[in-house]
């Protein structure tokens, strides 16, 4: 029984020593924790700022949309006017308005194909369907005397609503 008691006392002493060591470690960790906790808001603000700078710099402006227009406009499309603007009343949304002349046997079909190809090319950048807002045969087009079917002309305007992720555009 004496041995048993002696063992229990030894175990008790070991537990006390373990607790003392742990409390010393806890005090040291607490100091580090306080330092780290104080730094946390500054770090979070810094990270948020860095993310914003990177996002603003890497988010594309109108360039990819304009490159898409070039990629799908065939030789029978002549672009005469472009207006590409952000919508102040709808932050994050822009509108591309392309006007021009389409030449060929079936100007309406070509203009529709151009609109559809543009929609396909822009894909997720679109916020709504592109619209053939205006289509009008030109005087020197299908009914003009002496003009063949291959040289029919029509004026068109296509309106393309796209998403713009640029914070700079919103603030402008």
């Amino acid at each position: 029984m004496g041995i048993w008691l002696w063992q229990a006392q030894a175990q008790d002493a070991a537990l006390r020593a373990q607790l003392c060591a742990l409390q010393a470690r806890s005090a040291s960790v607490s100091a580090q924790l306080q330092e780290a906790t104080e730094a946390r808001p500054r770090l979070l603000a810094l990270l948020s700022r860095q993310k914003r700078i990177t996002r603003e710099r890497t988010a594309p402006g109108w360039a990819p949309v304009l490159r898409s227009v070039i990629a799908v406009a065939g030789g029978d499309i002549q672009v005469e006017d472009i207006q590409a603007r952000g919508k102040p009343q709808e932050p994050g949304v822009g509108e591309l308005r392309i006007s021009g002349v389409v030449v060929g046997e079936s100007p309406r079909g070509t203009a529709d194909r151009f609109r559809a190809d543009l929609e396909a090319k822009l894909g997720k950048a679109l916020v709504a369907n592109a619209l053939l807002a205006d289509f009008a045969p030109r005087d020197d087009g299908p009914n003009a005397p002496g003009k063949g079917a291959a040289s029919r002309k029509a004026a068109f305007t296509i309106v393309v609503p796209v998403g713009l992720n640029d914070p700079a555009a919103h603030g402008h």
Partner: protein
Amino acid sequence: MAIKIADMLSKQPLTFIVTGLFLAAWVLCGRSLALQEHQGQLRAQIARVNDSVEQALATIASIQKLEQEADFGRSEIKRWESGFPATDPLVWLPPRIKEHFSHYGFAAPVTRLDKVQEDPELLHYQRYYWRIRLPLDERTADLRNLLSAVGEFEEVERVAKVIDVAIQPDPLNPSGRAAVITVATLLRN
């Protein structure tokens, strides 16, 4: 009392020894039970302190991770900014714009600084808005060329972002037209 115990010891030594042993066992058991209870308390305390140390270490590790992310972000921004002169953009950007559009046949691009905006959330940075006017003539009237030039501009000049593009009557040539491109750049002061 001492006489009584001595008397009892001489008369009934076995009873006395058994009683003594019983008392000793009782005391030891009591002491042992007290020790066991105390050890239980110590173990619970150790577990509590251990948990709080583990939690604190996990929090410290998460903050150290944030610190590493911030260091990485800082070096990325520095690396990105090293691609541009640290001088006033009014000095170096307009010639670069002119050079880019000249490659596409726009002989006389005019760039002017429209406005400079501070952003309270981005200290040490300013957002510059530039207006580029490209007069259109017979050679550049085909707007495919303009679309290509503007489309490539953001690729070539990574600091620039095209905010809007418009074809307008040219104020310097009433019979002509000009493309007006608004570009934004976010630069360190």
